[in-house]
């Protein structure tokens, strides 16, 4: 009797885990054609993007990044610094792996924006939609990534495909939140003015609310890109090739140097993506202010 009060009774168990396992398995068997269709589509896009990236000669890529850096900061030093970062990745012997990683990031961000932007608009316009979506977003942000890595493997098998899915789940949240936040915070009188001229809901949305919210939305895009970058290493666990895989393998072999170089490469890539997109945002925002 005292035992019952001191520790949680071992007999009280709700075995939901196996139920979910069965459900996922059933889903993978019954929905096989559906999931493989999605997989084929995404893999095709991954191939196209990777091919496109490999078609750009390395020197052109470095030159473009350097020019972009100069263009957004108006400082030659910044341009040279950005070009040097990309050059260093090449010197580390990680150029091709970097392209693979970048491919996953680009494709994941593409889908995140494709779905996240409309969802963000929807929850900015409807309180009910917001009440439903908000807890799901919280869940997606706090649930450890490993938990949903496994079901994505079951449904889409290993490789880049589940990596893209997991990255989308993780990185779609900021674009949804920032889109909705930006639209809700557009000056009330500006929206009222639009309505008072007889604008329909769609006219107000596309001619006033979205353009006015654009700086905030672009911050969301930047955040989404950064979140996608941060998933790269985790995705190596489910067989996604790239810089993350190098780190994973080197860590398993206790090779500190081999792990450090791809680590630095990821940091450089993240810095470049962040600064270049932020620079674009500032340019856009500067026009408005």
């Amino acid at each position, binding site marked *: 009797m005292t035992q019952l009060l001191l520790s949680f009774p071992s007999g009280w168990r709700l075995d939901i885990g196996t139920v979910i396992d069965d459900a996922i398995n059933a889903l993978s068997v019954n929905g096989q054609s559906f999931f493989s269709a999605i997989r084929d589509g995404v893999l095709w896009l991954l191939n196209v993007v990777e091919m496109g990236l490999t078609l750009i000669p390395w020197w052109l890529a470095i030159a473009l990044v350097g020019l972009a850096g100069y263009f957004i900061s108006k400082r030659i030093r910044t341009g040279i610094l950005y070009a040097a970062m990309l050059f260093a990745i090449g010197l580390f012997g990680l150029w091709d792996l970097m392209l693979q990683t970048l491919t996953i990031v680009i494709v994941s961000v593409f889908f995140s924006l494709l779905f996240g932007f409309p969802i963000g608009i929807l929850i900015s316009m409807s309180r009910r939609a917001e009440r439903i979506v908000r807890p799901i977003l919280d869940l997606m942000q706090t649930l450890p990534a490993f938990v949903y890595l496994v079901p994505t493997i079951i449904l889409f098998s290993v490789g880049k495909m589940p990596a893209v899915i997991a990255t989308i789940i993780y990185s779609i949240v900021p674009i949804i939140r920032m889109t909705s936040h930006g639209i809700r915070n557009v000056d009330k*009188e500006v929206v*009222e003015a639009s*309505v008072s*001229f*007889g604008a*329909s809901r769609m006219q107000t949305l596309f001619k006033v609310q979205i*353009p*006015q919210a654009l700086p905030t939305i672009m911050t969301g895009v930047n955040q989404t890109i950064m979140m996608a970058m941060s998933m790269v290493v985790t995705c190596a666990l489910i067989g996604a090739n790239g810089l993350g895989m190098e780190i994973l393998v080197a860590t398993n072999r206790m090779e500190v140097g081999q792990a450090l170089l791809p680590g630095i490469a990821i940091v450089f890539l993240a810095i470049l993506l962040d600064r270049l997109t932020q620079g674009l945002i500032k340019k856009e925002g500067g026009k*408005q202010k």
Partner: protein
Amino acid sequence: MSDNDIILRVEHLSRLFGMNKSAAQKMIAEGAQKDEIYKKTGVTVAVNDVSFKVRRGEIFVLIGLSGSGKSTIVRCLNMLQRPSSGKILFEDTDISQFDKKELRDYRRQKIAMVFQSFGLMSHRDVLGNVAYGLEIKGVAKAQREEKAREMIKMVGLEGLESKNIGELSGGMRQRVGLARALANDPDILLMDEPFSALDPLVRRDMQFELLRIQQKMNKTIIFITHDIDEAFKLGQTVGIMRDGRLIQLDTPENMTANPADDYVKEFIESADKSRIFSASHIMMTPTCLVHLRDTGPIALKEMQKNGVSSAYVINNHLELMGVITQDGAISARREGKTVDQYMITDLPRVSPDTSINDLMPIAADARFPIAVIDEQNRFTGIISKAAVISSLL
């Protein structure tokens, strides 16, 4: 007055905010006060049983302190807010019965609004903002831009079409707001405290501008303000609001002569206090100056440069000695003498704190602008006749 002259009729309009509206309605019917209703039911009575008529072509002003319900009323007139009860008849059609499309057409064709903090879109330039209403209607680009340019010109912003909103001053922004509303060619112009965010001098400018535009376009204007001075200057009919009720509706003259209660009386008296303008508020810096020892040709050149026909003559200490006219300067040139031989010394002079009322008779007789002289006897400004008259508007 025939019924045809009435463009808008508001009958027993009420607007409540909160959940338990029916209980609040009952308390209103029993004659409860706004505070009491809020305490018992949590419902805010923003507008309480307000009725008025607006004549075609008049400026109708609603005045009240913040929270008196005036902004809510004006938002009901274009259905930005739905009335809780009562009727709003535009040319005998109840606008609260409009379906979506009818309401849209009403907003597109009949009524336009100017906002307190302008409500302009920072992602568009001046032209894009002014053309917005027409764009919504589906007017072709060339046509709407032509109309927008015309309106921009009318509000005095010609040449600023491609400026960003952020580059404009407050007064200019509200001119854009006004042009945007007028571009739609509405029958009624709603103005929700349009000049409250502007500084006093710019505000007076804009009031004058509005009267000028009203003269030209003959719109019906419903104007909201908390400044009684502004209300009396602009309004042909003025309504005073308090706690959601319209407590007096009259012409400014009648309202001053017979205020309905002490509240109205106090409101009107507060205006007189705020209306003390002095010479220093309306004077301008003197531009066309010559020195005692200057010759005729120099004086003539100075006049020509400033586009005027007389120049003020000063000494080394910036004291005003007199005025030299064009004729005087020509004589000086002919005789080869300095201007002090030909200047007129008999000039109207006032101190900077002379009140406008005292300036009136001086301005009436003056041949030249009135000179303003400060305590150190320095010449600090001039006041034209036009400045005195426009300060009374």
